[in-house]
């Protein structure tokens, strides 16, 4: 299968800072990829590059197109929601639907209105009259009604309460996602989405520090919880990160087998969130 997004040696500097430095990765169709990194890691820059919103060096292909020169064509197959891409306050709900229907050849009006009927949003309301959660629902309704191949979400649930966030991801998964579509998203609430991701890419200081499918993560990473007396022995096996929890030590190993570690303590596959912290503070 041809990758939906393929980056090779992607670079972007703002003055002396390298926001993204020689990044390479490939995202396959039908995946839900979490792009995870601390603030200022380069996630937004990467998104902007993918969406053709910024210039960069290196190679980048999105749905077989170069976002720098083929942005207009690309936008027919790519949708995005970014926390900085806000709906204008003067826009009415009905106008928003009319507008997208008028300019987007792949927009299905009835899908959008069906979705909105399940919410408290009125067609005649202006965006300024809606709560933040409702605005996100509206945005989601518009985006989900577009038959796009790639959906890019940059902190889509920022500032929403837990109920809205849960609903947002449920809708995304149930009403939208299928094996021909690809979703790439960032969020700070990693715990909430880790069950939904098929792949994770960790990025830190402009570098990719981890790029793996979630189901093969267990083969590569093991979290070992050891008592204090076994800690020294475990340490000889070279954990890339450790932290103390209630007098016991949690160690993170890469490329060790369960057989090597079982005698030392309890084993588990680290959660994405734990692995993220371990990678950022230890192995990066």
């Amino acid at each position, binding site marked *: 299968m041809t990758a939906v997004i393929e980056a090779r040696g992607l670079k972007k500097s703002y003055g002396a800072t390298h926001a993204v430095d020689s990044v390479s990765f490939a995202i396959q169709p039908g995946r839900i990829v979490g792009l995870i990194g601390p603030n200022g890691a380069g996630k937004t820059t990467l998104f902007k590059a993918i969406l053709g919103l910024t210039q960069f060096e290196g190679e980048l292909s999105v749905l077989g197109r170069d976002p720098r020169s083929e942005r207009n064509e690309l936008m027919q197959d790519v949708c*995005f*929601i970014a926390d900085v891409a806000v*709906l204008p306050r003067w826009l009415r709900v009905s106008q928003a639907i009319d507008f997208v229907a008028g300019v987007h050849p792949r927009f299905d009006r009835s899908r959008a209105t069906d979705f909105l009927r399940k919410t408290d949003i009125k067609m005649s309301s202006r965006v300024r009259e809606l709560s933040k959660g409702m605005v996100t629902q509206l945005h989601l309704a518009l985006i989900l009604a577009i038959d796009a191949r790639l959906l890019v979400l940059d902190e889509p649930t920022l500032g929403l309460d837990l109920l809205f966030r849960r609903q947002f991801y449920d809708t995304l998964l149930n009403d939208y996602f299928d094996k021909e579509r690809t979703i790439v998203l960032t969020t700070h609430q990693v715990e909430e989405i880790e069950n939904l991701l098929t792949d994770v890419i960790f990025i830190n200081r402009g570098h990719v520090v981890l790029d793996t499918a979630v189901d093969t993560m267990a083969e590569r990473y093991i979290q070992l919880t050891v008592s204090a007396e076994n800690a020294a022995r475990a340490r000889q096996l070279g954990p890339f990160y450790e932290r103390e929890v209630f007098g016991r030590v949690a160690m993170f190993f890469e490329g060790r087998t369960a057989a090597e570690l079982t005698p030392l303590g309890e084993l588990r596959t680290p959660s994405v969130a734990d692995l993220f912290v371990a990678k950022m503070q230890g192995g990066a």
Partner: protein
Amino acid sequence: MNTPDVTTAAAAPPASMTVQQSPQKVMIVLFKRELWEHRNLWIVPVLVAVLMTLTAFVIHVGNFGPNSHAPRFFTPENRLAWFTIMTWAFSVPQYLIMSLVATFYLMDCLYTERKDRSILFWKSLPVSDAMTVISKLLMGLVVLPLGVYLLAMVFGVLFQVIWAVRVGAGSLPYVAVGWNTLAWLKTQGLMFYALIVCILWLAPIAASLVLVSAWVRKNVFLWTSLPPVIAIILERVAFGTTYIAHLLEYRTWGMWSALGVNPTPPDGGSQGRVVSLADLFDNVEMGKAFLNIDVWLGLAVAIAFVFAAVRIRRYRDDT
């Protein structure tokens, strides 16, 4: 960079080229969008047209009794001329106010989407930057003036109807009326022609406002008005010359000389005769305006400004 092979081509949805909205349809949607956001674009012209029409109820014309000199002055010819001038005068305030509305609109059009941070929402849809910028320029430079032209025409007729009713009811002297369809058509034709020339002539000014609107971070008004003023003052102080001032004046008001309208009627005009706009229409030398190199130079500059505004909107990276 990847050439899709047969298997992926089959699995993937059809290439996007197959579904395309026609540019004309998209342009109409973009115009609507501007009218939704900038409601002054239609509220103000409609309001002004209604107010102008209402004046038909209140205008008072002195009573020309049989002893006054009115009958001599209001020859059938002069009455016809007054009719055309009234038609023209009815629309002038509408155009003046429209030009203010258009100026503020054009200064704002590409600035507000950055100010309210909605630009990335607009850019998430398959509308090119060129389409967006051109739609905004056309809105302020062409659609709005043509809309005001139609408003002035329709409400102008309404004005004449009210006027005629008042004359019929005896509240205005008979001399104050004189509908003439041919003269009306010619007056409308003359105004339409002048409008087109104005649009072409002012295109670089309008495009420069769009460019400033695409470019500035804040204070659009200052960035629009201060640079020319400073340039004029600097030129004056440094070289003691006034080229910039003259150039700007020419670009703002010079179209009247470019129109090719000869204000003197063919018979040379006679004492006490009022010039009819219908006669002016007969004497327009259209070639003079459309062969005027300054019209096309201005248009070329306007295109360059639009190009620059498109580039700025396309590649700007500070949101």
